[in-house]
């Protein structure tokens, strides 16, 4: 889901995850319409549809350690020994590029950077093994390499677990790598929709075109390199046998 600021993306994310009630219309999950603003009332559905919000500080309790934050959904799931749970937590942290070592596990949110918190929020959401993950700008505070790692983790989960992903972002370059379809939002309506590769290469609407143009590109223009083994000054047309 891409769109300029104030296009309605975050409002839509909140409605999809049951935090907000729509005035009209329906959200349909696996063929069945969802009730309105279900998040408070339906714990089962909460696990199935996870949200990674734009602001990690908002979502993560300052009173819990990293280990508790990532481990809580695992505890709720039940059926595991403490050491098994630790193993799951370590694996999740490693998958998002965070250390699974003692000191870090005992840290609390105020000791961590925005980038670390975003990754913990993602690990926590994945710990619940959701069917659908709505991620609203989940990598805005990560550098390119960390962002790439997040995208790989998300893609892997899609393949392995059939995880559905709604990725809300203004960064088309990232979105096209991790999603099958792109929905372009502007002024509260969908203005364009299609396969990711198509929309990001041949955007039809001016909204989409602008977003695609704004996507980061390497600033270095490609230049012609001389053919291997031939010094630039020599331009021999003779064939050597």
């Amino acid at each position, binding site marked *: 889901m891409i769109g300029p600021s104030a296009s*309605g993306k975050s409002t839509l994310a909140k409605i999809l995850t049951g935090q907000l009630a*729509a005035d009209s219309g329906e959200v349909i999950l696996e063929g069945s319409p969802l009730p309105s603003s279900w998040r408070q009332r339906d714990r089962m559905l909460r696990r199935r549809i996870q949200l990674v919000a734009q602001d990690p500080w908002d979502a993560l309790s300052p009173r819990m350690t990293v280990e508790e934050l990532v481990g809580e959904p695992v505890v709720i799931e039940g059926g595991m020994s403490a050491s098994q749970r630790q193993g799951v937590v370590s694996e999740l942290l490693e998958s998002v590029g965070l250390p699974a070592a003692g000191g870090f596990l005992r840290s609390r949110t105020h000791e961590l950077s925005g980038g670390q918190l975003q990754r913990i929020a993602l690990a926590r959401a994945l710990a619940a093994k959701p069917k659908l993950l709505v991620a609203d700008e989940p990598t805005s505070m990560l550098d390119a390499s960390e962002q790439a790692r997040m995208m*790989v983790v998300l893609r892997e989960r899609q393949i392995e677990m059939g995880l559905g992903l709604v990725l809300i972002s203004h960064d088309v370059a990232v979105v096209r790598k991790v999603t099958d379809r792109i929905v372009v939002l502007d002024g509260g309506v969908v203005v364009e929709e299609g396969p990711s590769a198509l929309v990001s290469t041949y955007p039809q609407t001016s909204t989409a075109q602008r977003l695609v143009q704004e996507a980061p590109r390497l600033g270095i223009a490609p230049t012609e390199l001389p053919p291997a083994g031939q010094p630039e000054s020599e331009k021999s047309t003779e064939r050597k046998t």
Partner: protein
Amino acid sequence: MAGESGSGKSTLAQCLAGLVQPPQASGRVLLDGEDLLGADPERLRTLRWATVALALQDAPFNPVTKVGVQVAEPLRQRAGMSRKAAATRAAELAREVLLDPALLDRYPHQLSGGERRRALLAMVLTLEPELVILDEPTAGLDPGTRRALLDQIRRLAAERGFALVMMSHDLPDAARLAARTMLLYAGEIMEIGASGLVTGQPMHPYSWALINAHPVMTSTKDLRPIRGLPPDPRAVPTGCPYHPRCTQAEDICVSQRPPLVQSRGRGVRCHFGGLKTLLSATGLSKTFGTGSGLGTGTSGGPVRALRGVFF
């Protein structure tokens, strides 16, 4: 025709060339309307190499005869060419398949696997067949050579007008060369249709997972294959053969074999017509600042955040 090992690709290749006959094979293989299955052995012999030419992945060359002699054999035996003429033609064909003609003077064990494969390809083209069936023509070649060879094959197909059936476990390669793509799994077609559609917008859960399980340059992790393994052809699961590895399997998938149905512009073998729609929205609207909302716009009036969202 794409698929993992054990999917039946090579067997299918042999069937299409008439090499597997009843009772082992049943059904029909129609070549220009003529059924190869159950055809007279003499007829099959006439068709072989001259009309239908097959290059199997592990077709062995005779180890005690030079490669060039073997490549030229169809020209000598079937086209009655002299030794010299056949050798010249063989060298020309070698060049067309990006094989150094000097290598024709060697014995098979003196060539690399990739070189032997190209020699086989040259041999396939000697009698200018109408149908060329290639089983993994580029497996084991480095990416540069692979791309060059595929481009050559495409060029040759266009120039000489032969039809091409290519078996490959490399989907992007296969799709670049062929107008239609078929995905095989445990001996069944899972998806079939225009190459652009099948590889660009895969609909079967298997196709989708296979196409997305490609190496990602930015990852330091191992490749993440589809969980589980392809089934042993002798012990194919009941119902849909893919159900143990499918992320959207339900009870019906375990008990009933799904039919091949037309879905979203191509054939898909899935009880649900392919990937299920997980999430959709119809006419979502939300306005803030009408008393029950969370805030108001700068002008103090209501903010229409969503005005009918469908996806």
